[in-house]
């Protein structure tokens, strides 16, 4: 890697990131940071991590040329990084494996996690079982309703799912509750944060556990097309699949990086989850970043058809990439995501997660404006099985 070196020692990405937590958690974060640094210098840890990614997760996953959909669009070639083919069906497992191995190294026997779509909860429940640990997953009541199959999956895997009824009953409140649990059980508990947010060192650590997405995709793209992609596109909830994809391309100025936030019912309606496109900097969940907030600094309720994007904040590194202009951030609405969901299902035989459908919608918008020898690399962050109830309900069908 060339010039890009973020964050600094205290976890700052320019003015963003850092560590904003109650005092009780500071020593736990310091302990985590030390353990993480040590692990990074231990070849055995990295060998085990990559071994698990191969044997348990199923990496490397393919970079798939979506030739039919590209032909239909009549422009750039679209390549899909198939994170949906990972064990448990999303990119989230990369990070869950990394953090669980770290937890084991630190002697912590209890994993806790927050989850929105349930994919990170399922991934954490899975690795907890894999490594013989206890697991508690916090999930907002609203998300429990719309992602019920994932709730059942977590319970099948032996995890306890705690339904969060405070606040807006979605991901942000699940995060608050997980932080409260951690404060209370800080001695034996490891908090597996599911995205590139939270206090230092989480944004950096989670990005690094996911950078394998971009590293593989980069090599595969070079191998298959002979050059780097013109554009990388990923959906942005907290921003972990996007950071994983973007990171190995940051020092390649020819590669455009485009993050897609949830446009919900449209930016004009206020019912969306697009802090980078509409918000302003503030402090939430341990870091400084762009937030959706009212003029008094209260965090706003968000809306997205996809539970995994329904979050009023975003990882601090994205805030930095936005301000520096290195990445661009746009939105796709619920409607556009639905169209992309159907299109990929019908044309390529791949049912994408609603989160990933936002990235696809953006790629489908960009491709026709480009030449057929150009490439767009899309993070297909997860598979859509978990979303079929939502999609069916929207179409008036009860399963």
């Amino acid at each position, binding site marked *: 890697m060339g010039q890009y070196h973020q964050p600094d020692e205290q976890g700052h990405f320019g003015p963003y990131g850092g560590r904003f937590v109650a005092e009780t958690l500071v020593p736990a974060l310091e302990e985590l940071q030390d353990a993480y640094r040590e692990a990074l210098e231990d070849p055995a840890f990295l060998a085990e991590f990559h071994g698990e990614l191969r044997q348990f997760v199923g990496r490397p996953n393919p970079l798939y040329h979506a030739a039919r959909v590209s032909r239909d669009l009549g422009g750039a070639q679209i390549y899909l990084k198939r994170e949906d083919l990972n064990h448990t069906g999303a990119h989230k497992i990369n990070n869950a494996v990394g953090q669980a191995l770290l937890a084991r190294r630190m002697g912590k026997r209890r994993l806790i996690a927050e989850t929105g779509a349930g994919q990170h909860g399922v991934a954490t429940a899975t690795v907890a079982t894999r490594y013989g640990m206890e697991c508690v997953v916090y999930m907002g009541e609203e998300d429990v309703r719309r992602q019920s199959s994932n709730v059942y999956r977590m319970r099948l895997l032996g995890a306890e799912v705690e339904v969060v009824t405070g*606040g807006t009953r979605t991901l942000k409140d699940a995060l608050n509750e997980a932080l409260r649990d951690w404060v209370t059980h800080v001695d034996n508990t490891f908090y597996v944060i599911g995205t590139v947010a939270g206090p230092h060192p989480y944004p950096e650590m989670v990005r690094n556990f996911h950078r394998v997405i971009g590293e593989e995709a980069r090599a595969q793209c070079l191998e298959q097309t002979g050059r780097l992609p013109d554009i990388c596109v990923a959906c942005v909830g907290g921003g972990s699949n996007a950071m994983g994809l973007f990171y190995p391309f940051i020092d390649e100025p020819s590669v455009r990086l485009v993050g897609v936030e949830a446009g919900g019912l449209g930016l004009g309606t206020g019912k969306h989850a697009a802090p980078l496109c509409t918000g302003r900097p503030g402090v*939430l969940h341990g870091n400084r970043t762009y937030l959706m907030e009212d003029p*008094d600094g209260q*965090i706003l309720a968000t809306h997205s058809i996809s539970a995994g994007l329904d979050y009023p904040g975003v990882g601090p590194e994205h805030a930095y990439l936005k301000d520096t202009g290195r990445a661009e951030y746009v939105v796709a609405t619920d409607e556009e995501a639905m169209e992309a969901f159907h299109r990929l299902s019908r044309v390529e035989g791949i049912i994408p997660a609603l989160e990933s459908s936002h990235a696809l919608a953006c790629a489908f918008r960009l491709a026709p404006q480009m030449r057929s020898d150009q490439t767009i690399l899309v993070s297909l962050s997860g598979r859509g099985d978990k979303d079929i109830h939502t999609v069916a309900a929207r179409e008036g069908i009860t399963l």
Partner: protein
Amino acid sequence: MSRLPGLFRTLREAGRTALVPFVTAGDPSFQGTVPLLHALVSAGADAIELGVPFSDPMADGPVIQRASERALGRGATLRQVLAWVQEFREKNRHTPIILMGYLNPVEAMGAERFAEAAATAGVDGVILVDLTPEESAHEVQMLHRFHLDPIFLLAPTSSPARVATVKRLGSGFVYYVSLRGITGAEQQDWDEVARRTARLRQELEMPVAVGFGIRDAATAGYLAAAGCDAVVIGSALVDRLAGARDDREAQEVAMEFLLPFSDVLSRHMGKRT
């Protein structure tokens, strides 16, 4: 100018531990907030911690979370909280008020504007739960510029290095979070809290208040005997207030609940080490 140094000087001379009730601004009612503050003083409060409601109170237990949600539902804002303090000051010039909340509403207002407005309203100290000392340079500078005390939290888990940082940056007093948990949780080992507080008082050369989980007068008395400079009564009080049917009843509930604390602290007067 902060009233806190004066308060703790007076108390030290009298050998008395301060009674510091916590209430969430805007709860149990919007209109009743200022009368409730006066009632707390009548019940023996030496200083008041006034909670600034926030949508995502990650260090608070269910009792204060719900109080915060109710207050926000009634339209409480940081600006409104400052207006309440100003109104309280029309009748009370001596009881210190410490705002306790989270950073984001302050950041939304701007730290400088906030500090100036808080000083004008008659606030004395500010606790921002998620503002770690490491990240606090700007806020501390602004608070000091307007003669307000930045008050930091220390926890059972805090290392000696962090104690030193808080000693350097904080003023007024230090808030010792007496348990590994959120506000309102159960605390068992008060002996350990007492020992730790005594040590901190020496190390910090600053008054130490103990809070999180104090529910009864006996515990307050024990902590007073062990030398704590102040005891903060939060969730136990807020929980009782939530059940009040109207403002008058809330004031009565507060009086009734706090008087035994006030009594026990008076009985320990002069016995403090």
